[in-house]
């Protein structure tokens, strides 16, 4: 940024800096961000933090209680499960798998959805309108249901469940992108750019995309929270990730068998999923209000 010689005491931040400033002002949003950052760190650095191996079974140490109970030991922070696997390690790897695959799912759905939505928004015609309304109708069906149907066709497994959820998330991106692009095309600055001689592609990249980033951020956080819930739900139902893969839903399902003997097997993965989704939603909400404040400023 160049040195301004106008008002020295005045600092004009760029739109992103203003968004960050109003996001920071909300304590709850910052808390959510810290939680989410913690989960991301766990996901990225999983092999470095975990003391044990995720699938190694230890017959001698079945159902050891977690460290805060009197019988537990510090060597197994969250205790072990029915096959002697360390729960702490499994949870960390679980965060990695759940969050990681949810993230990949959302990115893929966003790329496909935004491209389709942009095409539909910038071109006109009766056929595009019909396609859009069909996709909009798909949005009325819950994503989990669509994912289950697709998994029934493709078969079980983590990768198949990821494909299923990607396909289930695409209609929402298409819908929001299309309505946004259509509204933008009517704006006066787009007309001015068209008069300057911009082609449709140049219009999109230089004029519409900078305005679209806010909407995309909001939609992707929503989609991320849906993806996390759906992946763990599919894992729980044994339709997605299969045991012994340490996905959070799978851990929860495994723990269900011994729920009365060793409640921590159910509580700990459940809390992990709960806090993960909570932090994503809080951050998404904070971003939404920060962005709304910026527009109305």
């Amino acid at each position: 940024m160049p040195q301004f010689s106008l008002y020295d005491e005045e600092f004009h931040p760029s739109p992103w800096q203003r968004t960050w400033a109003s996001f920071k002002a909300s304590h709850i949003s910052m808390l959510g961000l810290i939680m989410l950052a913690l989960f991301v760190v766990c996901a990225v650095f999983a092999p470095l933090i975990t003391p044990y191996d995720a699938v190694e079974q230890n017959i001698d140490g079945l159902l050891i209680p977690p460290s805060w109970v009197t019988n537990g030991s510090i060597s197994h922070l969250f205790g072990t499960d029915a096959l002697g696997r360390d729960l702490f390690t499994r949870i960390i790897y679980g965060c990695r798998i759940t969050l990681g695959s949810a993230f990949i799912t959302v990115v893929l759905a966003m790329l496909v959805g935004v491209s389709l939505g942009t095409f539909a928004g910038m071109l006109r015609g009766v056929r595009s309108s019909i396609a859009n309304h069909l996709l909009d109708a798909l949005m009325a069906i819950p994503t989990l249901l669509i994912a289950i149907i697709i998994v029934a066709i493709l078969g079980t497994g983590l990768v198949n469940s990821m494909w299923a959820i990607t396909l289930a998330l695409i209609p929402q991106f298409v819908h929001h992108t299309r309505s946004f692009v259509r509204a933008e095309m009517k704006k006066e600055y787009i007309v001015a750019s068209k008069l300057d001689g911009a082609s449709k592609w140049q219009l999109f990249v230089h004029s519409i995309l900078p305005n679209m980033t806010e909407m995309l951020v909001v939609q992707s956080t929503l989609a991320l929270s849906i993806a996390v819930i759906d992946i763990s739900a599919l894992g729980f139902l044994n339709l997605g990730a299969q045991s012994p893969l340490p996905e959070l839903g799978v851990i929860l399902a495994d723990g269900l068998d011994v729920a009365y003997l060793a409640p921590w097997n159910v509580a700990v993965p459940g809390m992990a999923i709960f806090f993960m989704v909570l932090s994503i939603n809080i951050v998404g909400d904070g971003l939404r209000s920060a962005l709304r404040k910026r527009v109305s400023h």
Partner: protein
Amino acid sequence: MDIMQVKDLTFIHNEKKRWLKRPEIFQLGPVNLNVKRGETIAIIGENRSGKSLLAKLLVGALPADAGEIEINTHKYLAKYQSKDGQQKRTHDIRMILQHSAESMNPSVPVGKILDEPLRLNTGLPQAERKPIIEDMLVKVGLLREHYYFYRHMLSDGQQQRVALARAIVLKPKVLVADEPFAALDPSIRSQTVNLILQLQQELGLAFVFISHNLGIVRHIADRVIVMEGGEIVEEGKTETIFRWPQHTRTKKLITAYQSLVPQNTIR
């Protein structure tokens, strides 16, 4: 010497026939218009008389249905269907829209906004475009530092100047403006009027503008065109129209204006 000649410009807005509804037809034209180099022409008339439509047709924001426009000996048809039809249009005619705030993209800084016409139309590399843009900013009365400003940091007078800079950065011969002074405060309005007069002198720009403010029209226009119902009902030199209006619509407008001017006050 005529810099722009418009022949038989026509626009027929025909809403497709829907069930149980008759189609609405608004026909503009055929319009014939000649503009000399450095001349200022004001278009006045009631609302919905087709003034904004004419401005948009002249500059090419809407495709016309018939007619020929010749600017600076470059002749082309006013109607275009495909994109290469639009390529043949020239950038010698540019437009300023009424709401300067809406014609600026809120997420794009001023420098990039002004860079766009240059990037799309001249083959100059980035290093050569930046000094042109900075010169343009100084010329319209802004500072070089405004290159990095966003829309929300500028006052509406400054936004109007950015719109003006964007229009003249390609060095056009004709500038079309749709009510450029309507949303401005009086002191900013005077500054903008002076700016346009100076630019006209420097660049030999012809200026076609739409306005309701007959005081400004009388002061800066060389010729006045009166429109009603999509047609030009009267045109002529400013003083002639103001002193001896012929058509009923012109008479109504001039009488309304004269009743506000100091010597014939209402009370």
